[in-house]
């Protein structure tokens, strides 16, 4: 069975030492869970393992022999495959063509032979629970969960013996996660080695055999997965004891508002949502939960003027509004932090300062000129308030860790005098410590009297953070609850449409 040992791996980027002598062992038939904060060196380690970068020092041995991965192709030939969080696919090509890209089965004239390729994947399709018809569809028509399965199929077709899964569940629904866990068990039983990277601590005992904790470019712990508790992992990952209290929000007496700050009635869109009513009180955090495709983000974007609607009204502080553009929504006092940090959030090649202050430029206009000193001071202030770690405000935001980028985006909106702030997946793909910091900022902002809407796919997070919850499914509001009614069972059942004693599959009008 395969066994790979990395010892004393060092990698420097410019002056920064990303890996400071890491030792990791990967064995066939086992699942190694790699934990660490953003910037702890996980991605760098993965890149070393897949041959995408070469380490500056250290040794890699496979089954006792020293090997050196020249490039990704070489590592792949040696049986190492990675499924990245943001999958690399050819959107317009079919699933079959994606699986065999660069490794087509051809006759001696170079003509691609489809039938043998189908034969090669067929056994794996069955194992992954994918229908064969999917092979001939363009991959862009598949959901992200299925794209991941296709990429796993690709790894299996290439006879990968080590499969690296980089945060596979961060974009998956509960059902998809369960299926993935099942598949991982099958692969492990098959003698393959799995390297599993995650931020979701609750997954660890369910999936892993071993846990390796990376902190700041070093391995700070190796444990059998069954023995670790969330508390110890948290401490190890943070590299210090963690002072942040657990669930402070739900415990607080939720203040009762006489009139909601934002109220939407019968909002409909021809494609995404139907007859949606939301009441969002000031000074509270309202959580919106639903599976992918429930229409959560789309409703939020309509409120923010980024998506048109067919029918319905929006009342802001009692007055009817109809924002036709994000600019108008912002003038009205509505803010929206979008879910896709890279695509909808940051201006990657720009400075941190520019990214932080881009929504507040109006305040810094001095006639036809901009008050550059004022902007710099503002950015520096924001970096302090929101503990954004960077060399200075001039640092290019694209070079920061995901957590710091996300804090920057949060700061961009939080610094505005808004009545309603919508946060769409505000902590996706960032480490637990930064997550807690952002939660803290969100609560502080709510206490100041802003009406906060949090959209998240992380059920545990949203339950801990929200004072009240609205659950959506298939473009409709299916449940509302607050306080002690907010149980994971109830919310999940409503979101997936499972018939429990309390909720019918019909939309409910239960006023929280």
């Amino acid at each position, binding site marked *: 069975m395969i066994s790979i040992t990395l010892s004393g791996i060092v990698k420097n980027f410019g002056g920064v030492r990303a890996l400071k002598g890491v030792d990791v062992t990967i064995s066939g038939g086992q699942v190694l869970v790699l934990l660490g904060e953003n910037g702890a060196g996980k991605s760098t380690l993965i890149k070393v393992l897949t041959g995408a970068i070469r380490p500056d020092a250290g040794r890699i041995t496979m089954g006792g022999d020293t090997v050196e991965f020249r490039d990704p192709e070489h590592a792949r030939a040696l049986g190492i495959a990675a499924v990245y969080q943001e999958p690399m696919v050819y959107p*317009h*090509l079919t699933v079959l063509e994606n699986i065999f890209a660069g490794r087509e089965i051809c006759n001696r004239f170079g*003509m691609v032979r489809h039938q043998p390729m189908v034969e090669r994947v067929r056994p794996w399709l069955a194992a992954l629970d994918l229908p064969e018809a999917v092979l001939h*569809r363009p991959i862009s028509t598949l959901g992200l969960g299925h794209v991941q399965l296709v990429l796993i199929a690709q790894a299996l077709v290439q006879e990968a013996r080590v499969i690296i899964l980089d945060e596979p569940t961060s974009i998956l629904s509960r059902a998809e996660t369960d299926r993935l866990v099942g598949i991982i068990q099958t692969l492990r039983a098959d003698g393959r080695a799995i390297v599993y990277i995650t931020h979701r601590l609750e997954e660890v005992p369910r999936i892993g055999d071993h846990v390796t904790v990376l902190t700041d470019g070093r391995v700070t712990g190796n444990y059998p997965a069954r023995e670790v508790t969330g508390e110890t992992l948290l401490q190890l990952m943070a590299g210090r004891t963690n002072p942040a209290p657990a669930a402070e929000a739900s415990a607080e007496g939720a203040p009762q508002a006489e009139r909601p700050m934002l109220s939407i009635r019968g909002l409909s869109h021809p494609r995404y949502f139907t007859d949606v009513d939301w009441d969002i009180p000031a000074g509270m955090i309202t959580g919106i939960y639903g599976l992918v495709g429930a229409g959560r983000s789309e409703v939020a974007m309509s409120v923010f003027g980024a998506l048109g609607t067919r029918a319905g009204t929006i009342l802001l502080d009692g007055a009817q509004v109809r924002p036709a553009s994000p600019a108008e929504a912002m003038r009205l006092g509505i803010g929206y932090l979008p879910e896709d940090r890279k695509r909808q959030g940051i201006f990657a090649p720009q400075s941190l300062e520019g990214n932080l202050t881009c929504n507040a430029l109006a305040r810094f206009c001095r006639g036809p000129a901009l008050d550059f000193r004022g902007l710099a001071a503002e950015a520096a202030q924001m970096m302090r308030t929101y503990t954004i770690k960077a060399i200075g405000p001039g640092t290019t935001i694209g070079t920061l860790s995901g957590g710091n980028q996300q804090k920057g985006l949060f700061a961009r909106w939080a610094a505005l005098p808004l009545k309603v702030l919508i946060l769409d997946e505000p902590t996706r793909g960032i480490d637990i410590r930064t997550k807690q910091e952002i939660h803290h900022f969100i609560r502080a902002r709510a206490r100041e009297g802003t009406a906060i809407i949090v959209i998240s796919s992380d059920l545990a997070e949203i339950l801990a953070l929200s004072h009240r919850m609205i659950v959506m499914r298939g473009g409709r509001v299916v449940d509302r609850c607050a306080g002690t009614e907010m149980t994971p069972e109830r919310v999940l059942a409503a979101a997936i449409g499972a018939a429990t004693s309390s909720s019918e599959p019909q939309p409910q009008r239960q006023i929280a």
Partner: protein
Amino acid sequence: MSVHAGMEAAPARNWPGLAAGREVALLVALVAVALAVSIVSRGTFWNPVNIRSLMVTSAITAIPATGMTIVILTGGIDVSIGSMLGLVAAIGGLAFEAGWPLPLVAPLFCATGGLLGLVNALVILRGGVPPVVATLGTLSIFRMCVFLVLGSNWITAIPPGLTTIFIATRIGPLPMVSVIALLLMAGAAVILRAHRGGRHVYAVGNNEEAARLSGIPVRRIRLVSYVLLGVCTGAAALVQLGQSPLVQTSTGTGFELSVIAAVVLGGTELAGGRGTLLGTLLGTLIVSLVTDAIVLMHIQPFWGGVVLGLIILASVGAGHLGQMRRQEVI
């Protein structure tokens, strides 16, 4: 839409099926334009002389359009081919003037074109210049070279054999040049559809980084696509001299516009990774038809440029709308 719902919904479609909608629409547009032109021209459109000239013009556009389709599929573009055609014709014309025989000069046309394509490829790949900018540069450099080669002279010493072979010789109803263009397109279509190299062209255009990490020789594919387009442009320069046996400093000016309009109208996305040669064929026919109609109706020829520009804008605009619609479905 949940991922599961998405899986069940759309029926199994394979890849050529995706573009079929576009091609049917183009076919309808082609028939509609032909009808409109024949009505407005009061039947002169169907004059055999006009039809033959239309077939020759289409073929001259179609040959480089084949190469251009491949270049655009990889995510590149070449706006220099108008000047390239002029320069190849000028150099080849000198060879004709020097009395070289046709069998020797014909390969010279293709080789010169290939060489100029290689120049473009090296500027883009070695120099790291974005394709539009690089070929915009060579567009004016190649044109300058035409002036240097020709001085203030015209070359009229074009052997009549060119016209005899490519235009006058007919196979069935089609002039030889149309047959050549169709064979070239069919061959290229098979390669693009079924050959490993063709699949790699699509892969590069879809996701260059993923292609690199899959071990696909991205740079080689991009280089070959520009050289191939150069060779096609060289061939077009030769055939074009069969249609009008004269080389002057303005030869080929604006030619790139017709070719790019044909490819883009045919549904090939400028971003790369999506498009077919059947679409390009139909696009070429429509573009040639429209240009022909402008001549038939005695409209001043510069309106042709306006129409081609509008065709490019409309097709890219339509593609953009389609893209937005697709993105929304996520």
